């Protein structure tokens, strides 16, 4: 199996890992947003809390979530390693550098990724950790269900009424938008999927995705802070 390690440690193989994990995380974002939009249902969290209970107790979801954690970590570690070796490939820097030939997002993927990661740490510490590993959340039983579920909705409500948490979310989502702006089409290019007919479509889809998904996520804290 030495060809596998040769392949995955070559410059193109390392990029392949970034691309595939990135695409997986892109799909995850859409699923995550779809679930979270239940927070806006106006039912005092019933749909969301039942959904959250399902997502944390279902066996298949638990299995997939381990894959998700692994891919997130792989994407982060590999991304940092690649970025550092890229920076090292030009030890003597230019005195004058021209920034017109490429975009801010494409140059700053590591910085943007790290911002998203710090956001993720705050985000998971607040919700995922409290949901899975503590008894801090109160239990509620909804009519029609014969089991009690954790009231994650109440925690979300409380968190999103803190201005500084909302601010962290806005910054994290802004970084995510820029990260996706470059990452979406870049993932396809790395896979070798560059085609005269389809690449313009992928580029445009990527730009729409990188704006719509962060806006979708941003609506939730803004709704709790300003409306509810």
């Amino acid at each position: 199996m030495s060809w596998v390690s040769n392949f995955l440690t070559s410059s193109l193989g390392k990029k392949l890992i970034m691309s595939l994990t990135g695409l997986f995380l892109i799909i995850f974002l859409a699923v995550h947003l779809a679930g979270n939009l239940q927070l806006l249902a106006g039912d005092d969290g019933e749909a969301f809390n039942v959904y959250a209970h399902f997502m944390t107790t279902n066996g298949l979801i638990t299995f997939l979530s381990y894959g998700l954690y692994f891919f997130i970590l792989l994407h982060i570690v590999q991304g940092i390693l690649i970025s550092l070796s890229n920076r090292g490939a030009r030890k003597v820097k230019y005195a004058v550098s021209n920034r017109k030939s490429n975009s801010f997002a494409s140059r700053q993927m590591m910085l943007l990724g790290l911002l998203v990661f710090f956001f993720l740490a705050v985000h998971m510490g607040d919700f995922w950790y409290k949901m899975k590993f503590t008894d801090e959340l109160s239990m509620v039983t909804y009519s029609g269900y014969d089991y009690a579920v954790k009231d994650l909705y109440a925690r979300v409500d409380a968190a999103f009424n803190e201005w500084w948490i909302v601010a962290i979310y806005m910054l994290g989502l802004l970084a995510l938008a820029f990260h996706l702006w470059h990452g979406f089409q870049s993932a396809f290019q790395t896979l070798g999927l560059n085609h005269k007919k389809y690449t313009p479509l992928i580029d445009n889809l990527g730009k729409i995705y990188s704006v719509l998904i962060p806006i979708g996520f941003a609506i939730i804290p803004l709704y709790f802070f300003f409306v509810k």
Partner: protein
Amino acid sequence: MKLKLKIWRQKNSDTKGGFHNYTVEATPEMSFLEMLDVLNQQLIEDKEEPVAFEHDCREGICGTCSMVINGQPHGPMALTTTCQLHMRHYKDGDTIVIEPFRANAFPVIKDLVVDRESFDRIIQAGGFVSVSTGQAPDGNSILIEQDVAREAFDAASCIGCGACVAACPNASAMLFTSAKATHLGYLPQGKVEQAKRVRRMVAQMDKEGFGNCSNTYACEAECPKGISVEYIAKMNRDYFSAMVGSED
């Protein structure tokens, strides 16, 4: 026109370099290299060491002239090599900063001259056709579709100047390597060895210490021959199928 030049001077690869300031009198019809010739003549007359820079054909096809002008390899004009850049694009009193290409894989030899043998070694690793093709075949005896011939030729028009490496924030050689690794694979004589070629060339590229591609596309923007990043995607495809599909 009177120009202020800030030029990187470095005695050899072992010594530390630095910027020196010069003023030169140029005319709009001069090429950039002719302007440097005027400066060098001036330096020789003043009994100073002339600025070392590389040049050969001075008609934009040899890929020898290598310098970064105000932060851009081959200067500000698109699809133009330094030798084809003319002083009419500058105006009296302009300051021009001239640096060598910067990459670990392109060490500075002297002043603006860098060692680009790393590119030669990538070509030596696989950028050739080793099957015996015999005598030149009669015209049209091997039919090649016009679109395919064009794709092959577009990639083959890479002059190997290294501007892609110089422009890339990661000093990656992907545009050069992809152009050189894919153009032969489009044609029947080169297709035979494509899997081996792409594996060997990528392995050599990695060995030379270039950075990884992060798809910023600065290479395409600065390439004097307009090589498209589509060839990078093509090389990625060829490489993945070569690695997964080969028997070793």
